[in-house]
C-alpha cells in the first residue's frame, strides 16, 4: 500500500488524535510498515494506537481529567445562561415574521413552521453550540491530552444524564437519547477539532499537508 492508497480518515485520525512522547515514533512506524500491509491493517493499527494512548493518558492524568469535567460543566453553565435569553428571543421574532407573512397572504408559512418545529430547532442549536464551545475550551486548555480530556468530559455527560434520568428537555425519549449519546459527543469532538485546526493553521500547516501526512514534516519531534 503506497501513500495514496492509505485510508485518509484513519490517517487524519492518527495525526489529529494521537498524543504523547512517542507520537511521532508510532506514526512513523505505522507509515513505514503499512507499505507491505493492507488498508484493514492500517485501520486496526491506527485505532489500537489511539485507544491504547487514550487509556494511558486517562490513567496517568486523572486530576486533569477531573479538571476538564469541571471546566466543561462551568463553561456550559455560563454559555447556557448567556445563550438561552439570546436564542429564545429569536422565537418571538419568528412569530412576528410568520404573522406578517400570514397577513400578506402567505398561509403556507405556518405549515412549514409547524413542520420545522421551531422551538425544538432552537433547543437543538442551543444544545449544539453549548457543547461545541465547551469542547473548544477543553481542547484549548488541555493541549497535550486533548482526546483524553474530551473523552473524560463526554463520559461525564453520559454518567450525569444516566444518573439523573435524562434531564435534557427534549420532547421524546428517542430525541433525548440521540441528543445525549450522538449529538452531544459529536459537538464536543467538533469543538476539539476546531481548536486543533486553529493550532495547526497558526503553526503554518495547511489542512492538505495534514491530510497527506506522508509528505509532511513532523509537527513536534519528541525528545
Amino acid at each position, binding site marked *: 500500500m503506497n501513500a495514496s492508497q492509505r485510508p485518509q480518515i484513519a490517517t487524519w485520525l492518527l495525526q489529529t488524535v494521537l498524543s504523547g512522547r512517542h507520537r511521532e515514533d508510532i506514526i512513523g512506524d505505522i507509515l513505514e510498515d503499512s507499505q507491505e500491509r493492507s488498508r484493514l491493517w492500517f485501520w486496526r493499527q491506527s485505532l489500537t494506537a489511539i485507544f491504547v494512548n487514550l487509556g494511558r493518558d486517562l490513567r496517568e492524568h486523572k486530576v486533569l481529567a477531573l479538571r476538564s469535567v469541571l471546566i466543561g460543566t462551568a463553561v456550559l453553565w455560563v454559555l447556557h445562561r448567556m445563550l438561552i435569553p439570546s436564542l429564545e428571543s429569536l422565537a418571538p421574532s419568528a412569530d412576528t415574521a410568520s404573522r406578517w407573512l400570514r397577513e400578506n397572504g402567505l398561509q403556507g408559512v405556518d405549515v412549514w413552521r409547524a413542520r420545522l418545529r421551531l422551538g425544538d430547532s432552537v433547543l437543538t442549536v442551543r444544545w449544539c453550540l453549548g457543547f461545541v464551545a465547551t469542547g473548544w475550551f477543553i481542547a484549548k486548555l488541555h493541549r497535550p491530552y486533548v482526546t483524553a480530556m474530551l473523552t473524560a468530559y463526554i463520559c461525564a455527560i453520559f454518567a450525569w444524564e444516566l444518573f439523573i434520568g435524562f434531564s435534557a428537555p427534549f420532547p421524546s425519549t428517542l430525541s433525548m437519547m440521540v441528543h445525549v449519546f450522538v449529538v452531544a459527543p459529536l459537538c464536543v469532538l467538533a469543538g476539539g477539532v476546531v481548536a486543533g485546526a486553529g493550532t495547526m493553521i497558526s503553526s503554518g500547516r495547511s489542512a492538505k499537508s495534514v491530510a497527506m501526512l506522508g509528505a509532511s514534516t513532523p509537527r513536534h*519531534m519528541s525528545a
Partner: protein
Amino acid sequence: MRRREYLGSFELVVLLAVMRLDRDAYGVPISREIETATGREVAIGSVYATLARLEAKGLVASHVGEPTAERGGRAKRYFTVTGKGQREVRQTQQALRFLWEGVPQLQGGAA
C-alpha cells in the same frame, strides 16, 4: 527495602525482542520479531506503551536515529536494553526455569 516489580509477560517478550535485534531495535522490527515468535499480529501502539513503561522503569533506553522518506520524514527511535534490564530478564528466566522444571505435566514435550 524496595519492593521488586516483576516483569509482565508482554514486557518480557518486548525486552527479549529488543535484545535479539540488538542495534536494529525500533518499532517495526520489534513488532515483526514478536509476530514471528508468537504468530499473532502485534499492535505497534501496544509495543510503544510497553516500551514507555520499560523506559520509565529504567529497563530500556532509547535514542533517535535518522529520518527516512518512507516514514514521512520522521526519525526512527532505537531501543537498547540497559544493564538493569538485562539483570531483570536473567532473574525472570531463572524464576521461570525453576517453575518450569517443577511441572511434571510439561516434561518430555507432551501437552
